């Protein structure tokens, strides 16, 4: 695709690096020449230096003939105007990064009347990402496929894990839970397992199943499968607001600690179900008072990365089960894994990942059977959902009868509202949606997966 990206900041740069690897033709627009130069030294893109809201600059960048414009500068208004201009001069689609709560609430109006096809809100995306992580506290990572219908859970196998040395089929017999192990990341290698694959220490296994089965699987593995029941959030920003709101639905008790009294009052007004505490979240006594030793999750969302990291180290040290810290600095995230302080979430990374996912979903596939495409395990594997509709190569056949190419796995079938984890005897019906995970191929058609 021809893509124009306006804004070469952290989000823009991350999007560019990912999309270039997928062979798109990209032009980046920014007012900062040195940021562009830096980017040009790293990736094969073209740059235009100038103000992206200007029609002349957009024309120079090739917006009139492009397939997609991504406006990801710091400012909501700039992004919105960029998209309006782009639409007016002929861009096919536009995506804007908009963080204003009110504006993102009227996204339907924006897309229908103003032509901004999608808006991505960094805070909202971050909150959703956190709540996803909380769904399975023992998981190392959770990928949500097909609009949240399928959870793909990643779990790292420790040295002393009971399953080391077991074969996949033995494990499933032992735990007697219906989950499907669909992918194993072993070092740099991605393995699509069959029944006889043996687990090794250090493997990261990815599996899927119905939510209850995944819970049960964690329990059988001796890991706490218990869901989170209570949480302390330090810092009452927008992420905290969105997070608290989405957690109420799952019945988690939320306590927010915020310094600013005005903000506290506002939050108390907006979130009547939450306990809002006005005070310094870095005060150990206050934290103890508010019960940091008895909650099972702790989220540090202050505006200061370092503060968040120290807070989460403290929470880990006193034994809180699930600890999450916000950090916008990527290099911290790289330095941090060795500290074992739980999960780091970066709103900018979350935003760019979300935009990249949306961009991939916009790609016109060769065949309309492809519904969506996801990248897994640092882009080394991909998950594709296909609509089977009435393809006679598939409909009415059992998995056993179909001859798949090696190195891929039909992981799940969505049938109406039901999630089916297939085994050899599962028969494919018309209008099923199939999720395929593969390590080596790039598929564009459903028939490609057959040998």
């Amino acid at each position, binding site marked *: 695709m*021809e893509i124009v990206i306006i804004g070469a900041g952290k989000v823009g740069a991350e999007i560019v690096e990912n999309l270039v*690897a997928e062979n798109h*033709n*990209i*032009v980046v627009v920014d007012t900062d*020449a040195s940021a562009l130069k830096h980017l*040009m*030294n*790293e*990736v*094969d*893109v*073209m740059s235009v230096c100038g103000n992206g809201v200007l029609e002349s600059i957009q024309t120079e960048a090739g917006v009139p003939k492009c397939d997609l414009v991504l406006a990801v500068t710091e400012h909501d208004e700039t992004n919105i105007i960029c998209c309006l201009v782009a639409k007016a001069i002929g861009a096919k689609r536009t995506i804007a990064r908009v963080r204003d709560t009110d504006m993102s609430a009227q996204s339907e109006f924006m897309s229908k009347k103003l032509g901004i096809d999608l808006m991505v809100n960094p805070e909202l995306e971050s909150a959703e990402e956190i709540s996803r992580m909380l769904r399975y506290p023992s998981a190392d990572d959770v990928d949500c496929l097909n609009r949240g219908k399928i959870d793909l859970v990643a779990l790292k196998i420790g040295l002393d894990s009971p399953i080391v040395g077991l074969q996949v089929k033995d494990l499933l017999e032992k735990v007697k839970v219906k989950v499907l192990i669909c992918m194993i990341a072993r070092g740099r290698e991605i393995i699509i397992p069959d029944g006889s694959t043996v687990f090794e220490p250090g493997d990261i296994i990815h599996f899927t199943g119905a939510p209850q089965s995944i819970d049960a699987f964690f329990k059988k593995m001796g890991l706490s499968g218990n869901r989170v029941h209570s949480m302390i959030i330090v810092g009452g920003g927008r992420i905290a607001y969105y997070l608290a709101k989405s957690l109420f639905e799952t019945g988690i008790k939320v306590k927010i600690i915020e310094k600013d009294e005005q903000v506290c009052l506002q939050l108390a007004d907006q979130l009547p179900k939450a306990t809002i505490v006005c005070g310094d979240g870095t005060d150990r006594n206050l934290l103890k008072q508010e019960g940091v030793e008895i909650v099972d999750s702790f989220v540090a969302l202050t505006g200061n990365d370092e503060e968040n990291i120290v807070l989460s180290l403290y929470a880990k040290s006193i034994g809180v089960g699930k600890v999450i810290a916000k950090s916008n600095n990527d290099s911290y995230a790289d330095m941090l894994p060795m500290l074992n302080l739980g999960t780091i979430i970066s709103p900018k990374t979350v935003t760019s990942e979300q935009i990249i996912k949306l961009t991939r979903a916009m790609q016109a596939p060769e065949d309309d059977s492809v519904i969506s495409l996801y990248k897994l395990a640092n882009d080394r594997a991909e998950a594709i959902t296909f609509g089977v509709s009435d393809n006679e190569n598939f409909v009415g056949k059992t998995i056993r009868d179909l001859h798949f190419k090696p190195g891929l796995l039909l992981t799940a079938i969505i049938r109406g509202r039901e999630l089916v984890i297939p085994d050899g005897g599962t028969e494919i019906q018309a209008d099923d949606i199939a999720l395929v995970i593969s390590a080596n191929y790039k598929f564009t058609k459903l028939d490609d997966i057959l040998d």
Partner: protein
Amino acid sequence: MNLRISIYTIGQILKALGAFFILPLITSIIYGEVHAQMLFAFIVPALLSISIGSVLTMRPPEDRTFYAKEGLFIVGVSWIIISLIGALPFSIATLGDSNFADLNYIDWFFESASGFSTTGSSILHVGANGNQIDLMFNGGYRGLLLWRSLTHWMGGMGVLLFIMAVLPSTSGASGLHLMQAESTGPSTGKLVSKVKGTARILYLIYTIMTIAEIILLAFAAIGDENMDFYQAIILSLGTAGTGGFAATSASVGQFGLYVQIVVMVFMALFGVNFNLYFLLIIGKIRDAIKSEEFRFYIAVITIGIIALTLNVSIALTNVLDYAASFWTTLQYTSFTAISLVTSTGYATCDFTLWPAFSTSILFSLMFIGACAGSTGGGFKCTRVLILVKSAFKSCMKVINPNAVYSVKMDGKKLDNEIVKSVNTYFVVYLLIFVFSALLVSIDSAALGTTNQTMTIISSVMATLNNIGPGLTSIIGPSGDFYSFSYGIKILFSVLMLFGRLEIYPILMLFSPKTYSRQ
């Protein structure tokens, strides 16, 4: 400096280089020159290049970091290796032929470096049996002569750029760094978002223009008995790369006015920044014509021609040929001016006989050179413009120290870094020039008895600016570079590569820091 990826990339380039030897081989077959030795002359270098390349690419590097430094290093090293391999066909094919017995591998390396760098200086000289180039043309070496001219064509737009245009794309910004290191001018941008796409567009324009010239020249075969399809190809390859190798010693002078005009126009066209042709294609004609560099280039040519014509027609009234008519003089001066400013080096007359003022004009033209981003050599019009403009602003600052000035080009403010880099380039260029002139002057045996200083200076100018002939009779259009000692020939070969790659890629090979891990 990431040596592993540099070596790996050089390996990939060498693997691709092997394919280029097919063209001269086919030519040899067409002209019935094929015998075992001629076959070996092209197959041995091809296999050598492919096998070295295969060895170097055996293990792909894990660390893929690639910056401007790696780009410069790869371009510098691969151009030297390409020139070394490119000399092999000459060496092997002429082995045992008594007409070429006085030439060895160093001479042929000079010839090959001269070819790839689009210089056009030659060590082929008048031997016992006549001029060696005519001996080649008539003696069954037409495939070899095609290879000689093909090196011009490949070197003009860039060997690596060609490989990038043809091979599947490399990831990351490595392509841009290679392209910037190989192409000419102070700043190189992309035409479209991918390097591969840019390389393809440039080579497409280049190829179409070359074919157009071949067709136009081939038409001349109707009335001109010296012209045939082979000559048309050789001349076009030499013009396109702004190199200057011809198939016979008589060069362009043996053909009629029509051929001379076609060659002259195409020399001027190949000296224009290729980005302008791209602007033409996408319909931005006004932007193309407005380009300051283009206008400067046209002005330099026009002023050069006028000054030369006036000087020559006034001073040389009693020389038979020039006295004949004003039009003959104009024909000579305009061809020479364009040939030297674009650094091609074709000649229709012996301009070493012209008066001193003309020699100075020619010297200035040789220095200025063609546009950046063209196939031509020299210091480049853009650089001269930037240099003059920034010098002017600096002078203004002396008068009014608190004033703030910016150097503009095409109405846009120039990045300070570019201005600085042009100034630096000028200083480095001068240092190399002076130092080389010093070295050449040691070789007193080759410098003749008269006009020694001019021979020294113009020989360095002719090689460093990729022009070809110098301004005195020894190295002029009817002279050659054979008489210099081997040390100086190697110096000239390096200078030619210096000039074509614009100094830094070769210069950095001499720095020990390049090879350290930090």
